[in-house]
């Protein structure tokens, strides 16, 4: 298990290094000079040069990469070209919305998907199964921004249970903030829960037809006991994979939902930064997201090993 963890950690570190190089080079190749963008078309060459110096755009490729990575390691992500504020601060503020939102949505999705998937699989072909399959089909098909707007009309405008958008800030109180994240979280969770429920169902159906489930039944376990004690944990591997992918997506992919609900999250930040050629912000946010994805993958791989002893014993 220790060896397994160490090899995973090593591959995590390598992924991060490769990703940082790719992101850095991609941003280098992109057309668009931030200095020219900031000063406008009529700027003088020497003014531009002075600004480039100030922004640290003039060193060699290697120097700039080293200072970027070195900065990030010490928590200094540089200064935004457009807002002239530290990038770390900007990201920090946004992360405090995006991260809780992603976790909230993931929790909702898992809480809905597990029982639905397990229930459908245990009563394969029944009305329950047909209903779950039908509803999840719809859940996958409905665009989540449309569903979000529908919820705003019903729950914010007509019923007035929730506010239609915006985020008051965590200082205003935990429950108020959670309440304002509820509709966006539901909108994000709906398609994810649908996918996860379907994966849970099919993974469980696969394991339920395995020989060892029959062995368990021959020992005297009821169908329900055999499902809970033998099939469920074996079905978790594909489900964990999907949960890992979904979390990464939720963290970065909430951009449309953030726009629908006027939430100042990471998605909106990166959108604004791209339109403003604020490359240092783009670079940092993308790197942060890569970091999140790699960490989540690592967590998923550790979870695999906890579920499956065969992985634990291999190298």
């Amino acid at each position, binding site marked *: 298990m220790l060896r397994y963890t160490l090899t995973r950690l090593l591959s995590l570190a390598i992924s991060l290094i490769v990703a940082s190089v790719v992101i850095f080079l991609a941003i280098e190749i992109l057309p668009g000079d931030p200095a020219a963008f900031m000063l406008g078309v009529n700027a003088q060459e020497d003014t531009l040069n002075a600004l480039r110096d100030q922004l640290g755009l003039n060193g060699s490729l290697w120097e700039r990469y080293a200072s970027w990575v070195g900065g990030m390691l010490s928590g200094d992500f540089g200064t935004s070209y457009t807002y002239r504020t530290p990038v770390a601060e900007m990201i920090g503020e946004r992360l405090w919305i995006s991260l809780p939102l992603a976790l909230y949505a993931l929790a909702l999705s898992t809480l809905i998907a597990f029982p639905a998937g397990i229930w459908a699989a245990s009563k394969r072909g029944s009305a329950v199964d047909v209903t779950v399959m039908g509803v999840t089909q719809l859940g996958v098909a409905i665009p989540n921004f449309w569903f979000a707007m529908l919820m705003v009309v019903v729950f914010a405008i007509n019923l007035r249970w929730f506010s239609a958008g915006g985020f008051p800030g965590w200082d205003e109180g935990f429950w108020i903030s959670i309440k304002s994240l509820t509709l966006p979280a539901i909108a994000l969770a709906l398609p994810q829960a649908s996918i996860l429920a379907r994966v849970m169902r099919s993974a469980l159906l696969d394991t339920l037809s*395995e*020989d*060892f489930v*029959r*062995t*368990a*039944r*021959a*020992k*005297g*376990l*009821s*169908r329900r*006991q055999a499902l809970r*004690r*033998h099939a469920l*944990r*074996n079905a978790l591997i594909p489900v964990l994979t999907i949960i890992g992918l979904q979390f990464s997506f939720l963290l970065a992919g909430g951009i449309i939902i953030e726009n629908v609900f006027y939430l100042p999250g990471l998605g909106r930040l990166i959108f604004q930064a791209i339109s403003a050629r604020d490359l240092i912000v783009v670079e940092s946010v993308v790197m942060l997201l890569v970091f999140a994805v790699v960490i989540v993958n690592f967590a998923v791989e550790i979870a695999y090993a906890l*579920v*499956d*002893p*065969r992985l634990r*014993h291999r*190298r």
Partner: protein
Amino acid sequence: MSLLKIDNLSLDIRRAAILRDVSLSVDPGQIVGVIGESGSGKSMTAFSVMQLLPEGARCTGAISLSGHDILSLSEAEMCKLRGNDVGMVFQEPMTALNPIRNIGDQVAETILIHEDVPKSEALARARDALNRVELPEDRFPLTRYPHELSGGQRQRVVIAMAIALRPSLLIADEPTTALDVTTQAQILDLLTRLVREDGMGMLMISHDLAVVADMADEIVIMQKGEVVERGPSPEIFGNLQHPYSISLLAASTHAPDRSVQSVDDPLLSVRDVVRTYTLPRKKLFAAPGVVEAVRGVSFDLKRGESLGLVGESGCGKSTLTRAILGLEEVQGGEILFDGDPVFTGHKANRDVRRRMQVVFQDPYGSFNPRHRVDRLVCEPFHLLDEPPKGAARDEAIAEALTSVGLTPEDRFKYIHEFSGGQRQRIAIARALMIKPELIILDEAVSALDVQVRAQILDLLADLSARFGLSYLFISHDLSVVRVITDRCLVMKSGEIVEQGATEQVFANPQHPYTRELIAAAPDLPDTAGAA
């Protein structure tokens, strides 16, 4: 009074009749062998007793087990019976255990589910059960996981689970079909011993007459969902009445007519072949370990000869096969086909490769299910520089299919439309397509029912006479090797330990391992076929 009594049991699954009026009984301490081919309903009879039938199944008749009327019990009552009064052992030990729970937990579960005892006591009793199936604590602690055990050891764990509560009836559904001969003999001994010790009744299901004949007190022969013959063993074998039983017995001892004369001219010659694998490093800077799968093997296969290669799983015979086919490079020695190396410059020699073909064991897994038969049998054409096209291709397909006893029209079908035996014929047709001189048969008849197996053996004998084919016949089944080969090699741990004329090797084995193998192979009683 009978322990298990099945009376006129009929079973329908979604209106398809599976069993018709099956009656049999098992007394305490008695072993009843149920024999039949796949589809005869023998396994479904067992699952009816357990009431673990597929959805849509409907039983009529009566099953009584220690006084319980099984067919009238509720599912909850059945759960109390399963594992407690009746235990079951399955065919496929590799998948019968939950891969993510250790063996102690899995055996203890049988006890915990039926008795209200603390977990520590259940584990102690699981330990006893594992000791009884000869898995001693020092080598097999409760914390072992299934993937750390061999097939035979896993089957012992399954047996431990089944007998942990000392049930009055044990059902074994083809418990040794997936195992090697020596392991098979050990498992059969173990089951017999447990039955005698505990006074259990046992329902032993098998397609192999010889396996059951050795141990059963009573034999029931089934065909197409009906019992066609029954009687005490071994007496029944001397006096079979029903035509099906007689043909079943004939098929399991069937020896094809072989009239090929081999010439003294080596077609394939294997010289001091060594094949090693590198293991993953155990420590970062330690030298990686090396496994020698094949260690200095030498033999010749003469033109027109049928040569057997016998050995248990893991002995290196599959590795050797891959080397002969030029699929893998060898680390030492040479393999020559008609004087030319099969492997030149890190890849297979095409000129040689097109002169030999292979037929594998699994008639279900060795075809792409999305291709039609014509495309499947034409696969070896990629070895030719100018594969036949158009009419010539159709003609080649028709000829190959006809020569294996199928019709040219079969080429338009998909593989799922064929039975296991027919699929193996198609696999042989595929091998014949490019008119090879040597066909390697890698356990090619091991997955087939005895009657189908007899037909395929006849077909192989006929083809070798017609086309002058040579065979390298790889099998763990000694009875098959004995009837189809002229000479045979016995392989153990990567080495050939004995070779010689087949009849001589079987009649007068020299190496202790060969003797062990022959002793372990189940035999039909001498009275068999006397009638």
